[in-house]
């Protein structure tokens, strides 16, 4: 992948990834999978933070710009609708795309912020998961003993955060204090129950464990990024209706850790409400529309961020030539801040082994905004995949 900055006239991402994967099945019920991610960055564009990983999940560093990471290492047993999975894995919950309302079990790779092909880009954790049917209800229970938090771009990288809301209220031009990272040892526990009602699915869920978003706390002369435990309850619903599918999610965090605009680096826990509605619409001539609207509200005064964020996403895509070409365009915007990004892309599946893609990520808005802070990271990019 190579991306060239439009504002800085420099490479803003340049890396090569190898993703070998092996799977084995035996005894009809057992399956093992091992998947690695080996990557090397060039042009001093970086591979993101490493100290936000729990020690048991931390990538192996190969010099300054090389890493090997275990993406999946699982042993699973299945029988009919029951599956138990042990090992390093992801836990993809929620029904919206990229708007994380209830999808908050997994940590997320944010070293390219939201400018990735899949959103969120999940980080796997060591744990155990059991999925089974109980009285017509689909149960999904998970426990992760791995405190890995979101991976971030490090200061100086193209997508390092600069808005004060993500820096405990420190403005962009203020010097960043010496930062340490304090990964939580608490497990993450979750349970989700899903039931089908005709053309609808509904689920309720509970997640208890370390937040993946840090709060800053004083730590000697610097600050520590800490990941406090919080509890989330949520619900999802989706329904197909002709050419459309509607998706709705809502969640409440009872005790969201937050930074306050008080010195030195004040913190508190507040109630947080998240919600979103999404629409998939199969338009004429194979054009597909995905539109979503989400909100994120934290109660109380003196926060380093606005009380309410309202985010919208609109994606249009169409494939051509028996799905060998795919054109897409996406607009992500903060209706509350007035910033956003426009992401056109074109993909060509040359054959079953080779694919090339090209696109742009164009950012506008205030530098204090969720998207506007990456204004200088607007870029054009080129990517090629080769499957062996």
């Amino acid at each position: 992948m190579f991306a060239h900055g439009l504002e800085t006239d420099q490479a803003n991402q340049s890396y090569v990834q190898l993703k070998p994967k092996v799977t084995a099945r035996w005894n009809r019920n057992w399956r093992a999978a091992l998947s690695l991610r080996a990557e090397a960055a060039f042009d001093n564009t970086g591979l993101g933070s490493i100290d936000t990983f729990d020690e048991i999940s931390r990538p192996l560093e190969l010099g300054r710009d090389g890493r090997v990471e275990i993406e999946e290492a699982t042993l699973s047993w299945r029988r009919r609708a029951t599956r138990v999975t042990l090992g390093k894995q992801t836990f993809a919950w929620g029904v919206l795309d990229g708007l994380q309302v209830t999808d908050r079990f997994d940590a997320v790779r944010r070293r390219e912020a939201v400018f990735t092909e899949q959103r969120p880009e999940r980080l796997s954790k060591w744990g155990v998961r059991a999925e089974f049917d109980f009285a017509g209800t689909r149960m999904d229970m998970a426990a992760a003993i791995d405190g890995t938090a979101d991976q971030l771009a490090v200061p100086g990288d193209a997508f390092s955060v600069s808005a004060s809301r993500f820096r405990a209220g420190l403005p962009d031009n203020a010097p960043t204090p010496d930062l340490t990272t304090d990964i939580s040892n608490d497990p993450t526990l979750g349970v989700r129950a899903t039931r089908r009602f005709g053309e609808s699915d509904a689920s309720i869920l509970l997640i208890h464990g370390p937040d993946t978003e840090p709060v800053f706390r004083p730590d000697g002369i610097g600050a520590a990024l800490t990941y406090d435990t919080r509890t989330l309850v949520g619900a999802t619903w989706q329904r197909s209706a002709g050419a459309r599918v509607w998706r709705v999610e809502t969640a409440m965090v009872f005790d969201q850790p937050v930074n306050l605009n008080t010195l030195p680096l004040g913190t508190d826990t507040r109630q947080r409400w998240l919600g979103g509605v999404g629409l998939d619409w199969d338009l004429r001539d194979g054009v597909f529309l995905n539109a979503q609207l989400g909100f994120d509200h934290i109660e109380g005064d003196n926060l380093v961020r606005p009380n309410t964020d309202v985010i919208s996403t609109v994606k249009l895509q169409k494939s051509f030539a028996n799905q060998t070409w795919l054109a897409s365009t996406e607009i992500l915007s903060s209706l509350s801040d007035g910033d956003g990004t426009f992401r056109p892309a074109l993909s060509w599946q040359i054959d079953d082994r080779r694919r090339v893609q090209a696109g742009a990520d164009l950012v506008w808005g205030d530098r204090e905004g969720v998207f506007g802070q990456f204004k200088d990271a607007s870029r054009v990019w080129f990517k090629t995949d080769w499957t062996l």
Partner: protein
Amino acid sequence: MQFLKPLCLCAALSVAGVSHADDASSDALALARMVADRAANEGRVGTMHFQLTSSSKRVREREALMLHSDIGVTERIAIYFTEPTVIEETAFLSFNHTSREDENWLYLPATERVRRLPAGDRGDYFLGTDLTYGDIKDNFKFSLDDWQFELGEPAQYKGALMPVLKGTARNPEIGIEMGYASFQAKIDEASGFPIWIEYTDTDGEPLKQIEILMIEPVGDAPTAIHFTAENLQTGHHTEVRFSDMRHVPDLDDSVFDPEVLAYGVPDVD
């Protein structure tokens, strides 16, 4: 009363004309019904081999496990792709209900989630093939709710004279949804299969030809195990062949559980 004679004759001729039209229409409907009521397996399983050939002769191949079950009120089809690596573990599930809207799900490994798809997408093409989602679900049948039927002149097919069934979408909306305005098909009365079908697009232009090359009994039901679909407008061609097709009458419901799509290919006896 002489003046009544021509009126009576006209009326008689008119009734006879309606009667002939009715007969033709009911014959067409009977033929369509014979195809629609063709014996189906309660359950069958087989490996699908797709060969996709572009107009420039570039070939792509796919392999998948197909599971099919017809339990009266709902016909269920699950397709688990196993080859090539780029689409391995992708899985599609369709419920074709008789009394309510159909349901579809797709599992894409990259997203790590099973996604409910719009049910109205039956005119969209299935994973790069020349078959629509509707073609996959219809299993060489023409829904009596979607089409108005008429009989064509019997036609030769590989040395045999076969009845020809023609269909026109009941209304433009249905046509747009299916991606077809009309079809004509040569019907093999022995098996109940439309052995050769030509569809027109919603503008009435020839769009696609489907030809069944081999039918074999699976359990008690004749089953198409080798067929082709060619897009007449692009020259793209799809060949589908089944291997190891077998009757499995007691397929476990779990293989048709949307959430289980994410588990990967199931083991089926």
